[in-house]
Structure formats: C-alpha cells, structure tokens
C-alpha cells in the first residue's frame, strides 16, 4: 500500500516537471509532445487508468 502512494507521488512529481517544461519550451512541437505525455500521467494520478 505504501509503495502505491510512493509511485503516485513520483507520478505527480512527473506531472509538475512536464508542465514546467511545457512552459519553458521554445518549440511548438516540443510543447505538443509535453502535452501528450501529460495525458497518461493525469489519468494515472486520478486512478482512472
């Protein structure tokens, strides 16, 4: 159970870092890539997938 929440914390940290990088990117394509990476991370953080 503890491991589940440790992984959840890592997942949320990944979301924060990807959003940070999304706002720092200078290329539209890289922003798009970051946005797509966010989708599964959000679903996992909400325990939907």
């Amino acid at each position: 159970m503890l491991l589940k929440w440790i992984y959840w914390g890592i997942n949320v940290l990944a979301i924060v870092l990807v959003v940070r990088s999304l706002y720092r990117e200078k290329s539209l394509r890289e922003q798009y890539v970051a946005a797509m990476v966010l989708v599964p991370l959000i679903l996992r953080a909400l325990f939907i997938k």
Partner: protein
Amino acid sequence: MFEKRNIASVYTATAMLIFAIAIAIISGRSYLEMRTPAAGVDRVMPHVGFEQKKLSDYFAGLEGTAADTDVYIQEGAEPGGTALILGGTHANEPAGFIAAVVMLERADVRRGRLIIVPYANMMARSNTFPQDAHPQTFGFTTKGGNKRIFRYGSRLTNPVYEWPNPDIYIHPASGQTMAGMERSNLNRAHPGVADGGITERLAYGFMQLIEAEQVDLAIDLHEASPEYPVVEAMVAHENAMELAAMVAMELEFEGVPIRLEPSPKNLRGLNHREWGENADVLALLLETSNPSAGRFRGRTDEALILTGADKAYEKAAGLNRLYVSYEGGTEPMAERVARHVVTVKLLADNLEYVRDGKGIAIDGLPGFRELSERGVGAYLSE
C-alpha cells in the same frame, strides 16, 4: 536560408495544457465506462434452479472489493458429484466466458451439482493492454432480436486495483519467478494468499470455494492465439488425465478434434495446476482458438472477435504457421463456444467412470453442430 520560426509562448503552452486536459477527460470517461458499464452490459440470466451466491461467501476477505464475483449453483434431483466451471479468468478470451454464460442460461441439472462462475476476474473486465486496441464491447443478437452486450477485457487485473507490480513476481507457494505483471494474472496467482495482493486474494477465494463445496471436477475455460501450440486443447492435471483421455476420444468421434496436453508440473500458479495440487479435485484447462488476441492480427474490431476472420492469419495458415486448421479463413465464436460447451458436457457425463457415485447429468445444453450452426445468440436468453 530558412530561419526557424518559434511561435511557442506562454499562450500556446496554456492552450496545449488545456488540450491535454481535454484529451484526458475524453479518454478518462471512456475508461470509466469500462469500470461501470451501461445497464445490460455483461448481464446474465441464469436458468431456473440456479442459486446466486458471492465468492465473498466463501472468503470474507473479498467482501466489498472489486474482486468479488457472482457464483451460481444448481443442484439436481439425484445426488452425484460437483462440477465447477470458471469463465473469464482471462477477460480477453471471450469464448471462455460466453460458454459459461450459455451454460448458465441453459443448463438443467438432473444429477449432481453444477457451479458456474461466468466472470472469474471482474477486475480484468475493465482493463485493456496498451496498444492492443481492442473494442470495449462486443455483442450477439438473440432469437427475439435483442442485443446482448459483453465487455472485452484483458488477461490482467486492471492496474487501478493492483499497482505497482514488482519487476519480478515470486510465486508465493513455489518460489518460482515470473514477469512482474503476472502478479495480476489470476491464472498465475493460485492457490492464492489470504492477505496477499487483490488477485492473489481472489485466487484464494476460489480455493476456499472448491474446498467448501467439495468440488469433484473443476474446469477453467480459456482461449489461445492460433499460433500458440496449446490451442484447441484440453490441458489436464495428472489426476484428471484418465477422464480427459476418454473425453478426447469421444470428441474425436463427434468430429471435434482436440489436443490432449499434460499440465506442466513445473509451471506453477495456474488455476488447474494448483486446484489439482491443493484439493481433491480433477482439474482441467480448456483452450479454443482466438485470433482477436493473437499477435499476427490486423484490424481489431468486433467482427474479428466474432468471426476470427483476418487476412494475416489466412496467410499464416497458408504458410503452415498455425496450430489450427483455420478452415475457410475464419474462427467463428459460435464454434469456439460450442467446443467448450460440448467438452464440459462430456467431462460431466464421464465423471462417473473415474469417480464412483459422483456422476453429473446436465440437460439442456446445445450440441456442437447445433450451436455452431445456429450461433451463440440463439442460446442466450432475451
């Protein structure tokens, strides 16, 4: 010559973020629909005489969890043996659980007892493997023109209920090591652990059921890819080999060729292997051929699930790369379900010869030709 123009800004980043959230909402709704399907999806209508119980009646540790599942029991007028039929151990092997549903809706037990669990792993019914692109549901039209819809899931428990899995799964009873994801595979989790992961607890529940109901014959219904050697097969624990051999001969007489495979002793965790090891039960696993779960398949839609027709499989059959005949370039669901139903019927019919006084007689089940020709819908209730 051409200067790269960067038009990215905080505004485009915000637009992208909103876009990602919108995609997450749309796909999230789709995933949630799998967990709480529309009314009527996966519905079963048991034949008169079946009593409904829950697996948690046998193991309280499952009560209120997503793993708890329905158990149906019908007792015949004459005393005899007890058979357990498990469908849906793997929710991406549809002929397994559809055969269990057909038997649940048709079986009329004259002698002995019949226990049917149509959806053994409920937690796998809402799951799909990444990139497998399976449709979420498939269906049949009944005689009366009604549509019966069923979910198409996966081999494994949905990670929503069991996550994360280890890199290496050590099977608790034997110490055998497997890929980490197998921890969520009901067919590797037997005999289960009372305080283990949710799939191990589910397996433990089935062991409790087998012991409490003093099951004589336990059958696990599966499907395999046509390119997999153990397909159109009966895999028998050594204690069930005599019974399986008799039934294999009868199937051949009926024009239903089947392989008879001894269950590998060193592959632990499989339902039938551990049932046979840990209880006084004749345990078997049945496999039919399912192109919709195979690796060669192309477009994966409802038609592939129901007909098994696929160009790549046709080509593979032409190159003699399959372990089934793949006659006519199809592998119809009706034939696969019929194969399971007729095999179960024959196993029950012959049980008396290996367990004195423990015979089981089941009426009302369609024969192989009958079901293959008329289709599954003709044998599902309205």
